């Protein structure tokens, strides 16, 4: 007991805080130490909010065609001009034709300074689908002038705007797909792990079988069977279902493994021997111990779905125009000529890579933090 007396009261309080911290607090404390994972979390929150408020964040509408503004390169926002500080602005563009190839080329006109304004009026839209408004996060005062942060495509559509709208589809496809897989995986994994026996064996066999089918050809085959004439919304749902049909085995394996491990834990038996009902054991003992692992596994499954959707749409088998998704946007970058002419068309691909990396980092961080009681 003299050891206790020799430690400062501050330490004791610290210790007591650790000893009485809730499991999720401990997980959060551990997660916080992964700087990259925390940064990824912030990035993902920003991206998803950007997608949710795409119409507000982007200055234009995704289908606004500007015939005189095709293949405009990304414009950079400046703060200082030759005259000193100006606040955010872009230079005007001078449009001309290359005398040899007759291609349109753009040059910045340093004499024309066009200030970038925040909360400007632009094309009308319904905020969150409810409130009609014209307010946009940023834009130019003069509706004749265009602000193309990431350039434009062959039809003069603003790539930044399309990227934000595309994020809605691509990012949500990951979540929707994962929720489908999750339902399947959790259900079958839990049944398999909890009941065991013949049921477990048959589900195991089924999973083994599904894993022995090459994923992408199967996706492609199924996706190709989706009738072209269908409503884009149906196609979207169907594509995510197809993606999840194959992805669930991984989740089911995680869930089953946890269930099996937990079922044999002494504390679960202790609860049973105290007379706890099946329901109580599952809800009070097993599920709380699994949630953090499942969340980590889900996080790691999202990027697979995003990559799947992008790949299918890129190949023209998934979502098709007029739906805007990152995979659809990348279709424009399929041939060498257009990339050579307008390399910024690859930017949706960069966005995919960043989001996928962020999910991977986040998932890794979560997985490391998932068991705060590791011995």
């Amino acid at each position, binding site marked *: *007991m*003299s*050891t206790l007396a*020799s*430690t400062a009261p501050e330490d004791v309080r610290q210790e007591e805080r650790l000893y009485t911290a809730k499991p999720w607090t401990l997980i959060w404390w551990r997660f916080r130490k992964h700087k990259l994972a925390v940064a990824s979390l912030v990035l993902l929150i920003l991206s998803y909010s950007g997608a949710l408020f795409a119409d507000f964040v982007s200055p234009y509408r995704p289908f606004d065609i500007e015939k005189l503004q095709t293949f405009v390169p990304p414009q950079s926002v400046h703060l200082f001009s030759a005259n000193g500080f100006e606040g955010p602005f872009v230079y005007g563009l001078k449009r001309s034709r290359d005398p040899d190839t007759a291609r349109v080329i753009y040059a910045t006109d340093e004499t024309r300074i066009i200030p970038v304004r925040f909360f400007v009026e632009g094309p009308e839209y319904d905020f969150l689908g409810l409130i009609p408004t014209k307010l946009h996060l940023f834009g130019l005062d003069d509706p004749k002038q265009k602000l193309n942060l990431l350039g434009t495509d062959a039809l003069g559509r603003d790539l930044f705007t399309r990227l934000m709208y595309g994020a809605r589809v691509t990012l949500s496809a990951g979540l929707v797909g994962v929720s489908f897989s999750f339902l399947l995986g959790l259900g079958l994994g839990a049944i398999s792990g909890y009941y065991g026996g013949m049921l477990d064996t048959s589900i195991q066999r089924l999973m083994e079988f599904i894993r022995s089918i090459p994923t992408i050809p199967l996706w492609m085959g199924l996706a190709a069977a989706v009738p072209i004439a269908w409503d884009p919304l149906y196609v979207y749902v169907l594509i995510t279902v197809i993606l999840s049909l194959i992805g669930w085995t991984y989740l089911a394996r995680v869930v089953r493994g946890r269930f099996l491990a937990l079922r044999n834990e002494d504390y679960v038996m202790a609860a049973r021997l105290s007379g706890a009902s099946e329901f109580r054991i599952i809800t009070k003992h097993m599920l709380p111990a699994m949630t953090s692992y499942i969340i980590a596994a889900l996080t790691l499954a999202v990027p697979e779905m995003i990559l799947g959707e992008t790949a299918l749409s890129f190949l023209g088998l998934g979502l098709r125009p007029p739906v805007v998704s990152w995979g659809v946007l990348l279709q424009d970058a399929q041939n060498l000529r257009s990339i050579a002419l307008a390399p910024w068309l690859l930017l949706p691909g960069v966005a995919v890579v960043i989001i996928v990396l962020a999910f991977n980092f986040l998932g890794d961080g979560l997985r490391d933090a998932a068991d705060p009681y590791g011995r």
Partner: protein
Amino acid sequence: MAGETLPPMPPERLIELNDVAVHFSLREGLVRAVNGVSYHVNKGEVLGVVGESGSGKSVTVRSIMRLQPKTALDAGGAIRFRLPDGSVTELNRLPRDGREIRSIRGRHIGMVFQEPMTALSPVHSIGTQIARTYQLHTGASKEAARNRAIDLLARVQMPRPREMVDVYPHQLSGGMRQRAMIALALTCEPSLLIADEPTTALDVTTEAQILDLLRSLQAEFGMAIIFITHNFGVVADIADRVAVMYLGRVAETGTVDQIFYHPKHPYTRALLQSIPRLGQKRVHRLKTIPGMVPDPFNIPAGCVFHPRCEHAVAGRCDVAEPASRTFDGGQIARCHLADSLPELVS
């Protein structure tokens, strides 16, 4: 610094540890896992090292083999080992992956680990593992090494050694695996065998078989053994001399009789009294040591055992760390009160 002033080792001495310290630098702070351990082993002698978990007994023997984890810091002390040609090397000065220490490991010092299940490679047959060691140290042919493996398996009393040589560890029972492990450690007839809790994972009857085997092998090969255990019964069974460790220090060393019948350190006494013995007159309560082993980040000041010691004297035991004191018959205890404790009533 200690190395230069140490007296030369007497000729019968095989290995001597002087004031060995091993620390670990962890995120939570510096852990002094081993903090001034001194003991020695003479040729052909069995030293039993006893202590509870966290006493540093395993870390100490790993520093003999220079097998500490990479996070370990050598924090001083000397480990001197006599080679068969009579020369003495200071093991603690050898680089961890150097040629010299490698020529000692497995050849002059063999080691047996606690978990025979995981301590043998799962993807090599036991014969392959033994033969590789033999070839490494003797340059023998494959054929000779295989024969050596069969011979060793026979010597550790494995049934059907000619078949067992091609068997994989997971096909064997715990006791058989431990026999294979011992055969592996004895491949080159080392002069010192380090056994780290070799019987802890085994059942009593198997434990007895392994202890008998070790004893007969020791008579046959004439090697010395450092036998680590937490079981006083096992020590009493096999050791000539005993070192009792507590919190990274040696509390007491002496012959097995001295430790069991005339313990001088209150910790040794308390431990001996806290274990139930067969045929002991039925007592209702066991004697206990109050409190628990402190965690390695909060090692008590003064004598590390004082908070749990029934004889501790305030102002002395909680202030000054006691020095090792030598008594008649070479018994050494680290306690301020070692010669003034009341006689044991047995």
